[in-house]
């Protein structure tokens, strides 16, 4: 720790702090454009200049000079930093004037207006008029993909986007060509960016040079209602802020949550906004002579009630999809219990995860933040880049620090970091478990690609054995980590939404003739064969709705409050942003109404009452934003299962990153991204 005086305020900071961090610690804000906490230091915007005593007698870039670079005074007095001296004021005015020389005065037609760092800082630190009477520089706009629009005249060359794609995203998409006044930010010959995190460069851009393309010229930031909630596009549960205007969701931005997503979100999380408006189920439907016709709630509920009463309990099933909140899954479970059916499942992909093995058998026990403590990693049947791009960025962050050996079993893919490829299937994994040397704090990531198959339990056992034998389990470290792809999965497993005694699992339920009536709560990734009467409760007209005999319109994730449990077991609360469209209702209310129509109302009349019941039955749901950790003993028990011979290679869990759920499939922007990505694949295959 080093003492330093900032404007007369003494602070004690680590000696490797930069002056900028020390000033912030002392409570003085330093203006900046190029500096960003999560990127490397560039020191090229010069906006953070301060005056120092104990260093060179000229304005210093506070982001690029560390506290230990300053010398104490002759009598041991601590070095001093001034952030408000005349020299600093003049320096800031000068830098700002230079930045504005080539920056167009187009704030009124710029989408960044109102949330622009340059605008704000010009107001606070700039001078009132320009002395520049020559022509401004003009720069051609570049095509860099379908998600980010460019207005390159506005670029101030902070290079945040370049550093982001090179360091965090790891794709090295962007760069600065030319030099001096002719420097231009672009991708390689204006090709589209390839990262699943590319949308973040628009957030990072301190000016209006890089803007989210789908949102261009739609609205101003001060018009929006801002709701802080949780993302459900993957099982990471990234913290997001949803901006809405009236009844319309306008855009989705990341929030800072260092434990989960730092401050990044994937492109799917950010840009499915248009999918929330298309293909919506806004009224009930009943299938009559093969065609779906619009119906009233009474008609639809009566049709379901009649069918339910005519069906024996053992011929009824209930499925939970990938986007359901915990409350509605719980309500469906209560309903199923009331009907007396053992046919429940939340694993529509057929993943062999089972709450009977204990909570540790299906959690990402190492935790997302824990990835940074890991000493080595073994990835089994997962492609983290597609299954959870932000988590993949964490893995890359750990890998960049060095001394982090990653091994992969499964499909070979570009994960943005280097790894040892062990092989495609279980054989290579078993070989590795037998022969590899134990590592300190091994992280074993097992993906749904290894689990969603008939012998998935054997894969789970192998993964547990890898964790047990190769250093994945030690004091204070549980490296056995299941990477989920569905936001609803962990919560539903916590509810034990799995087949009861003698019950059928999802795949068996979907078989023709297995059941007569299936309640489908938003399960769209499973093909239910003809025969059963399907009641679909969901928000989008996707596969589930096409197969349905009665559609009860539900709410998308931005239209309901609810709990979600992410892949590491963190209980998080999502909040309603806007109301569901038309006659659609929140899913728990649909289930409550349905139970009323059946003549046996579920014991709650509000979400709060439902949540109370939920917490009584499962107390850990009360600990919002916390993780109730799984026990290592459960992983050891899992490892002691007898090994079963496995053959086939692990297949990828996600074929197309942009089409993993009904909302994404309804989004035109995602379709565009997908087409681009497929084009790249085809090109690479040539």
């Amino acid at each position, binding site marked *: 720790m080093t003492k330093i005086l900032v404007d007369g305020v003494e602070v004690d900071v680590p000696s490797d702090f930069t002056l900028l961090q020390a000033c912030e610690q002392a409570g003085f804000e330093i203006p900046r454009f190029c500096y960003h906490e999560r990127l490397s230091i560039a020191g090229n915007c010069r906006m953070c200049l301060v005056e120092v005593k104990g260093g060179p007698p000229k304005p210093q870039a506070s982001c690029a000079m560390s506290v230990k670079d300053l010398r104490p005074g002759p009598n041991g007095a601590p070095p001093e930093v001034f952030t408000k001296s005349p020299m600093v004021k003049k320096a800031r005015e000068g830098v700002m004037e230079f930045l504005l020389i080539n920056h167009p005065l187009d704030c009124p037609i710029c989408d960044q207006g109102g949330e622009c760092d340059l605008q704000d800082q010009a107001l606070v630190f700039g001078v009132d008029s320009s002395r520049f009477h020559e022509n401004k520089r003009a720069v051609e706009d570049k095509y860099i993909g379908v998600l980010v629009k460019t207005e390159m005249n506005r670029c101030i060359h902070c290079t945040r986007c370049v550093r982001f794609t090179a360091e965090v995203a790891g794709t090295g*998409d*962007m760069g600065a*060509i*030319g030099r001096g006044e*002719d420097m231009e930010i672009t991708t390689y010959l204006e090709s589209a960016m390839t990262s699943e995190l590319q949308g973040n460069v628009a957030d990072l851009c301190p000016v209006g040079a890089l803007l989210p393309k789908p949102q261009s010229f739609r609205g101003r930031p001060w018009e929006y209602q801002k709701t802080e909630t949780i993302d459900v596009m993957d099982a990471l549960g990234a913290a997001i802020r949803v901006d809405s205007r009236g009844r319309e969701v306008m855009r989705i931005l990341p929030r800072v949550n260092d434990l989960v997503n730092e401050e990044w979100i994937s492109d799917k999380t950010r840009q499915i906004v248009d999918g929330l408006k298309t293909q919506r189920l806004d009224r009930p439907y009943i299938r009559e002579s093969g065609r779906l016709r619009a119906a009233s709630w009474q008609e639809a509920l009566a049709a379901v009630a009649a069918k339910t009463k005519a069906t024996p309990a053992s011929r009824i099933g209930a499925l939970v999809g990938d986007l359901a909140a915990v409350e509605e899954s719980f309500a469906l479970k209560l309903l199923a219990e009331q009907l007396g059916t053992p046919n429940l499942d939340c694993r529509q992909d057929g993943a062999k995860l089972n709450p009977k093995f204990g909570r540790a058998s299906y959690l990402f026990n190492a935790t997302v933040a824990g990835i940074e403590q890991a000493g080595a990693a073994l990835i089994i049947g997962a492609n983290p880049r597609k299954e959870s791009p932000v988590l993949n960025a964490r893995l890359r962050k750990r890998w960049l620090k060095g001394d982090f050996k990653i091994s992969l079993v499964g499909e070979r893919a570009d994960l943005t970091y280097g790894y040892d490829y062990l092989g495609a299937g279980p054989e290579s994994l078993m070989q590795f478990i037998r022969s590899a040397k134990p590592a300190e704090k091994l992280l074993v990531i097992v993906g749904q690609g290894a689990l969603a198959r008939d012998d998935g339990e054997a894969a789970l056992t192998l993964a547990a054995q890898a964790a047990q034998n190769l250093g994945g389990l030690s004091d204070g470290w549980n490296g056995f980590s299941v990477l989920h792809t569905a936001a609803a999965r962990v919560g539903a497993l916590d509810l034990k939404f799995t087949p009861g005694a003698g019950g059928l699992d999802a795949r068996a339920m979907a078989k023709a003739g297995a059941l007569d009536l299936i309640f489908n709560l938003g399960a769209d990734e499973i093909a239910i064969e003809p025969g059963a009467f399907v009641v679909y409760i969901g928000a989008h007209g996707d596969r589930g709705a096409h197969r349905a005999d009665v559609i009860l319109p539900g709410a998308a994730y931005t239209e309901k409050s609810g709990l979600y449990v992410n892949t590491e077991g963190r209980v998080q609360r999502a909040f309603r942003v806007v109301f569901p469209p038309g006659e659609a209702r929140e899913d728990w209310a649909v289930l409550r109404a349905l139970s009323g129509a059946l003549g046996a109302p579920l014991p709650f009349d509000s979400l709060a009452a439902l949540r109370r019941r939920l917490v009584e039955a499962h107390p850990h749901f009360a600990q919002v934003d916390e993780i109730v950790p799984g026990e290592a003993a459960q992983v050891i028990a899992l490892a002691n299962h007898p090994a079963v011979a496995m053959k086939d290679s692990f297949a990828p869990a996600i074929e197309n990153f942009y089409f993993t759920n009904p909302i994404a499939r309804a989004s035109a922007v995602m379709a565009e991204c997908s087409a681009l990505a497929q084009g790249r694949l085809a090109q690479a295959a040539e």
Partner: protein
Amino acid sequence: MSVRRLAEKQSETFEFTPENKAWLDKQIAKYPDGRQASVVVPALWQAQKQNDNWLSQAAIENVADALGMAKIRVLEIATFYSMFNLAPVGKYFIQLCGTTPCLLAGSDEIIDVLQRRVGPQRRVTDDGLFSWLEVECLGASCTAPMVQINDDYYEDLTAENFEKLLDNLAAGRPVKTGSQIGRVSSEPVGKLTSLTSLYGDGAK
């Protein structure tokens, strides 16, 4: 400097010759594993030499692949340094210094000659022999005005001796590099004007 882009007309392919490939492998081996990117400037320079003194897109991509770099990283280097030509140049590529000392010593006359004989900047003559470019100071101000033709300096130019130089180059006759008026390195023209008590005729 101006905005530098790749040439519109590109050559289809680029492969290092076996000798250059061997040379490149030797250079890469000088650096620790994972630090191959350090060789990018020499690699581009060698590629340019092999490719008639200019860098095509194929050459840039070849270097990127050889060094395991993202293509944009190599493009950044190639567009940053003016020593890399991004479009075809003449067999004799003339870089004319137009910075203050050369300007004062008469680089305008040399420019006139070039414009008359070669044409505007960056244009390659029809016979493919010459193209020229005005560049910033090449560090030979004491023998101004001067040009650099390919790897060599030609100094103390006048309109006459420069024309003769171009004639000789065009005809394939041998030419003298360095000062065109017989000066050795940077010694004064004529006789000493300072330190005369120590050197030259006035020395004791």
